[in-house]
């Protein structure tokens, strides 16, 4: 099998360095997608170039350094915590005999659907100094106030609880697609179960976990909702303040460009973490799903761990929202049942998710198959939109379309384009992970058998990556469902989504009116989440 390489390369040219040349159509589409994603950068450069001495002095000072350190510190802490929570959950959901694991598999993923501002708000309401927990404890224990969870602990907790599903979904998909023969070989060779997990499973998980971790890290960098609720100023917070309080677009643009530099640093760090090893198998493999591992006496600790995560990240916000809803209804506040907004959410998110998936494919193939300077540069560019706060991307699209593409301005296609710019990596990363695990010899074999490039893509690559593609589609869809700033600024006038409805009521201080759209958002998002989770274990079968 290994000796066939030169012959099967066929017409593919080999450069002097031994690296294969990138096919022109792939290169052109990938560059085109990256240009689209980078368009906000062009706007930021225009705005930043208007800088006067004043705006520079506003930025070049200790506080900016301090904000950078805080932002990176929070991103690192949240990333480590999400990985620590998500890998055990993924393993339990996919590989163990955890009681009721099909239900758990969905429950673990669901916290993804809470917008971070809603999640943070719920945590504050429940665990704040005089929140719901305190009221429960006051009677029996006489506790008059709980410690303040604002600041770093609150931001860390909220972001960890509502972003770990990114790592969970990616890691679970990877765990499911492993060839069990590798682990079985390790066990046969006398390694203990834990040693096998440490020395075989974890290294195999590395690229997926690095990809999931990157999504979490950059989500933390661009998040505004949780950090503003929890009052932990970060870089994004500073950018928002410039726009919202000072109406000064120049410092905001300079800060945003600096944020992009930070994000590129994070992407480079991930490149190191994911390593350069090959992750595909060269033989035919076992071609069957792994057998679930019996938890034995670990069963109940595992259930306890799973329950406590689900309690904090899912049950607690649902209880808070239900409480607000019930209280509002009791006080005669009219319910805020918005079927039209629900339809708007699904339409915009589906259009955004499908477009993002299609546009992510060339970037994923290029960066997985043709590693090199160009590929990593393009991949870095593809991430810039994801690292930028939604408001910045939205205002850049306002400027670019209102000025140059007026018919597109304030239309649904523009909202979909904004989602592509904001969420491309959420589709590109799972796809890239899938392509990395795909043996290139399969494609080469198809080419030898007379398929052209497109037909190989269609008949060999796409079917093999359909699982991760579903995950990618689901991730983008779920994230788009909760997106607010870009939707609010770019939507057609009068077009509503559940996120905009939540904002309308919450920004007016009417939490009970915000509760029903938030619960609807959760309920609607649960359906694709359930399908995503089902796919994870569908072929696992009964033990």
């Amino acid at each position, binding site marked *: 099998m290994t000796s066939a390489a030169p012959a099967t390369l066929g017409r593919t040219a080999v450069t002097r360095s031994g690296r294969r040349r990138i096919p022109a159509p792939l290169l052109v589409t990938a560059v085109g997608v990256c240009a689209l994603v980078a368009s906000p950068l062009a706007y930021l450069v225009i705005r930043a170039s208007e800088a006067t001495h004043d705006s520079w002095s506003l930025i070049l000072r200790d506080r900016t350094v301090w904000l950078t350190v805080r932002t990176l510190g929070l991103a690192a802490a949240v990333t480590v915590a999400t990985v620590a929570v998500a890998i055990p959950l993924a393993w339990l959901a996919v590989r163990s005999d955890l009681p009721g694991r099909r239900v758990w598999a969905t429950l673990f993923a669901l916290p993804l659907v809470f917008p971070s501002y809603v999640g943070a708000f719920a945590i504050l309401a429940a665990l704040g100094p005089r929140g719901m927990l305190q009221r429960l404890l006051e009677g029996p224990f006489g506790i008059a106030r709980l410690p303040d969870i604002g600041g770093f602990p609150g931001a860390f907790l909220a972001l960890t609880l509502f972003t770990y599903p990114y790592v969970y979904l990616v890691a679970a998909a990877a765990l499911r697609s492993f060839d069990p023969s590798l682990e079985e070989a390790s066990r046969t060779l006398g390694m203990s179960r834990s040693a096998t997990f440490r020395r075989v499973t974890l290294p195999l998980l590395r690229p997926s976990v690095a990809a999931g971790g990157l999504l979490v890290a950059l989500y933390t960098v661009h998040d505004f909702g949780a950090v503003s609720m929890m*009052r932990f100023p970060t870089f994004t917070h500073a950018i928002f*303040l410039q726009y919202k309080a000072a109406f000064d677009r120049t410092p905001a643009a300079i800060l945003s460009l600096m944020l992009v530099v930070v994000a590129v640093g994070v992407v480079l760090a991930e490149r190191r973490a994911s390593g350069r090893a090959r992750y595909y198998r060269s033989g035919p493999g076992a071609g069957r799903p792994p057998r679930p591992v019996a938890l034995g006496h670990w069963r109940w600790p595992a259930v306890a761990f799973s329950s406590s995560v689900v309690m904090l990240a899912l049950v607690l916000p649902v209880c808070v929202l239900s409480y607000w809803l019930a209280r509002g209804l009791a006080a005669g506040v009219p319910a805020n049942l918005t079927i039209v907004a629900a339809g708007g959410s699904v339409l915009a998110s589906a*259009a955004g998710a499908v477009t993002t998936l299609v546009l992510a494919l060339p970037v994923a193939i290029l960066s997985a198959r043709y590693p090199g300077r160009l590929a990593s540069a393009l991949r870095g560019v593809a991430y810039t939109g994801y690292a930028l706060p939604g408001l910045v991307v939205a*205002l850049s699209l306002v400027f670019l379309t209102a000025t140059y593409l007026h018919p597109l301005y304030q239309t649904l296609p523009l909202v979909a384009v904004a989602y592509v710019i904001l969420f491309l990596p959420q589709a590109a990363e799972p796809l890239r992970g899938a392509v990395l695990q795909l043996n290139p010899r399969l494609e080469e074999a198809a080419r030898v058998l007379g398929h052209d490039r497109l037909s190989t893509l269609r008949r060999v690559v796409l079917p093999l990556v359909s699982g991760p593609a579903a995950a990618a589609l689901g991730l983008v869809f779920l994230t788009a469902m909760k997106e607010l700033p870009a939707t609010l600024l770019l939507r057609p006038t009068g077009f509503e989504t559940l996120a905009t409805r939540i904002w309308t009521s919450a920004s007016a*201080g*009417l939490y009970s009116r915000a509760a029903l759209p938030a619960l609807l958002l959760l309920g609607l998002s649960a359906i694709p989440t359930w399908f995503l989770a089902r796919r994870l274990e569908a072929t696992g079968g009964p033990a």
Partner: protein
Amino acid sequence: MSMGWANPRNVAAVVAMLLFASACGATGGGAEGAGTEGTTGGGDPATLTIYSGRSEEFVAPLFEAFTQETGIPVDVRYGDSAELAATIMEEGENSPADVFFSQDAGTLGAVAAAGLLTPLDGAILERVDPRFRSAEGLWVGTSGRGRVAVYNTELVDPAELPGSILGFADPSWDGRLGLPPTNASFQAHVAAMLIAIGQDETRRFLDGLMENGVRFYADNASTTRAVAAGEIEVGLVNHYYKYEVEAEDGALPIANHYFETGDVGAFINAAGVGILATSPHADEARRFVDYVTGEPGQRFVAEHTWEYPIAAGYGPSVDIPPLSEFRGPDVDLSDLGARLPEALELLAEVGFV
């Protein structure tokens, strides 16, 4: 290894369908027609595009009544006042907006300073006290939003509340205060303080609050609810939040404390309205401004909100001090925008944001 839905032909078809459907939906929504409708109508009034920073929860009925009474249809685009101001500035001369209806004078001042608003009729401007309109006549106030201290009636003796806001820097208020530092109303108030009492005294006040361990909240509503819950005893918010929160939560142990007339704490900001210089529907826009500053609009403020009607001859809906007594520092609201960057800088230095 079934291809299932991932078949690329299906995917392409779905994409095409969705894009087509959304394009249709968008055109149907009337987002594109704003510039052309004026010329097509045979006597029918054009649709007025209004960017509203005022919440749909409160003002939607006002727009409906306007359309009913005047026959002028409106497309209302709701958003955050400051974000809409930034949007209008990015749109520049291509803005589809005819009217900007904002929560606060600062955002109107910023759009006016960018040269994007057109002067209003003198007769309309005359309806309100000069302190609630732009000196150049570029925007006019529609309702008043006063700054107060909301306090917990079970924890605070009203007699100990200071007549001046500066009294809250006193150590006797240690551990008892809260406010929303990122809220636009609070920041506008700090900008007003900079104008009225200067940077040194404003900084001394903010430092004093900091030393008193002032607690920070996300917005006015959560500050007010924290006062009601006894998490803090006093919150610095706008006067109408007590009523809004009670409308939703039922009666709460909270009351508003109004600072002395003339005190820098008794600052009152205005929500207001301006007409875009690029608007092709100037007549319809003028009728809207006339409507909201005239009898119907002011009666709406009086009957459906807890804000101050701003035109002469209308009183607030609840038992609050009359507007004539709610008089703080002598500050031109149009100047607020220019001082906001400085206010923000100061808040950052002191550690509020």
